[in-house]
């Protein structure tokens, strides 16, 4: 199949002016989940996951990541000139009332701005980023902010309880001339796949057993990555770094190998083992970790995955502006290694699993 004409690229080049990460400080070791539900005999897919504090949710996590992105952008962005504030998540605090307006108010972007919440499981953030590329690239706005953030819940005892983590990543997109990394193009691959879902009014998600691996995660990431590289005429060797969505440690390692990438290429952006699957934030958080260490001229491949299902792939090239900006906010690795471990009982309290009345 030819991918001619399927490369998504705006009329004028767009890049990242500032980026920011945030991960809550609390950690639930996977051994705690294992202790409660399998008597310590089940095996664990990660070391531990990040848990939001009692006063944290997708709004507060998004605000922290957004402020870090603004700090990095510095003089390149006046908050009042941000033309769109978009937040992708599957755990927006309200069913009806946007997260994005609260975030826009908190960072000083209101009232002359576009605001919207996006949802598509774990790729809600990258689709906001893709739309922001179009918004800026068409000249409709000068600067747009795309955020991926989640405080995902797993049903007690379910396999997802080990990994459903919390975190956020925010990106300010604007003209390529002012950017610390420039988008070379993006590519999406989407099908109707019943691998994972949550119905309205339900607290916990369900998953379709045999659909979760091969026909969902691996097929969509592979098609999006190969489609993008075919359209750009690139191969794995052209990229210094790559990020593939991280629902656990094994999946991104495996898909990287299948696509011809080494474990060294993905190492700087791999955080799932220590913070869990941060859902809409996961691949975007990985990109912040890579921007923390990448050198000017280096290329990065980013591929998200959202259940339901689809993948967005992006090719980026880092510019010399990265050097001056990266140290204006905390490195993602610092958030990942900062930890306050809690036990299952405290986790049950923090995540609202105790019945109070």
């Amino acid at each position, binding site marked *: 199949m030819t991918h001619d004409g399927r490369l998504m690229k705006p009329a004028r080049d767009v890049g990242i002016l500032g980026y920011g990460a945030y991960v809550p400080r609390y950690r639930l070791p996977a051994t705690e989940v294992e202790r409660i539900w399998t008597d310590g005999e089940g095996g664990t897919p990660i070391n531990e996951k990040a848990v939001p504090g*009692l*006063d944290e949710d997708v*709004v507060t996590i998004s605000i922290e990541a957004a402020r870090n992105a603004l700090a990095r952008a510095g003089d390149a962005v006046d908050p009042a000139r941000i033309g769109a504030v978009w937040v992708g998540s599957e755990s927006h*605090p309200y069913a009806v009332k946007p997260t994005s307006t609260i975030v826009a*108010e*908190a*960072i000083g972007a209101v009232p002359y701005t576009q605001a919207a919440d996006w949802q598509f499981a774990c790729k809600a953030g990258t689709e906001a980023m893709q739309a922001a590329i179009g918004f800026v690239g068409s000249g409709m706005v000068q600067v747009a902010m795309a955020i991926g953030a989640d405080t995902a819940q797993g049903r007690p005892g379910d396999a997802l309880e080990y990994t459903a983590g919390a975190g956020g990543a925010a990106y300010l997109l604007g003209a390529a001339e002012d950017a610390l990394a420039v988008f070379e193009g993006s590519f999406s691959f989407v099908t109707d796949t019943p691998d994972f879902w949550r119905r309205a009014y339900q607290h916990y998600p369900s998953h379709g057993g045999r659909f979760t691996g091969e026909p969902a995660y691996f097929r969509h990431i592979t098609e999006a990555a190969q489609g993008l590289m075919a359209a750009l005429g690139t191969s794995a060797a052209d990229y210094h770094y790559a990020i593939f969505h991280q629902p656990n440690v094994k999946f991104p390692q495996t898909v990287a190998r299948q696509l011809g990438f080494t474990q060294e290429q993905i190492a700087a952006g791999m955080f799932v083992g220590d913070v869990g699957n941060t859902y809409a934030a996961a691949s975007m958080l990985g990109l912040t970790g890579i921007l923390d260490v990448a050198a000017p001229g280096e290329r990065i491949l980013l591929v998200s995955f959202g259940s339901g299902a689809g993948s967005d792939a992006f090719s980026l090239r880092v510019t010399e502006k990265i050097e001056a900006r990266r140290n204006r906010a905390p490195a993602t690795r610092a*958030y990942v290694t*900062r930890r306050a471990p809690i036990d299952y009982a405290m986790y049950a309290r923090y995540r609202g699993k105790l019945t109070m009345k």
Partner: protein
Amino acid sequence: MSVARNWRLQQQRYRLTGERCDTCGAAIFPPRDVCPECEAPAKTPLVFSGRGEIYSYSTVYHPPAEFETAAPYMVALVRLEEGPMVAAQLTDVDKGSVSIGMPVEMVTRKIRAEGDEGIIAYGYKFRPAGI
């Protein structure tokens, strides 16, 4: 607190927005439209840096209504870098880790929620500076 009152206080709560006195230069928080230093009218908005240090602190074990689910929690008087003193909750702190003079920074967090159906109020708290 009413939905309307929450909404009126949003700017000051989300971003620590106060005022600057154009007459004597004092930084004012919370905003009151009159300078507490020189009594001149003061209406120029000022977004505070959010940096400050702990002046005094205490732990709340018996909280007022609407804050029960958060207890025990710490509260502090914070001396802002720009001068004013502000009372607020501390967050992301462990028992025994807080001291007078400790540098802190503003963070926007959930303050309270009116049950499962009401509005969620967000506002400033302070946490140890840096990570």
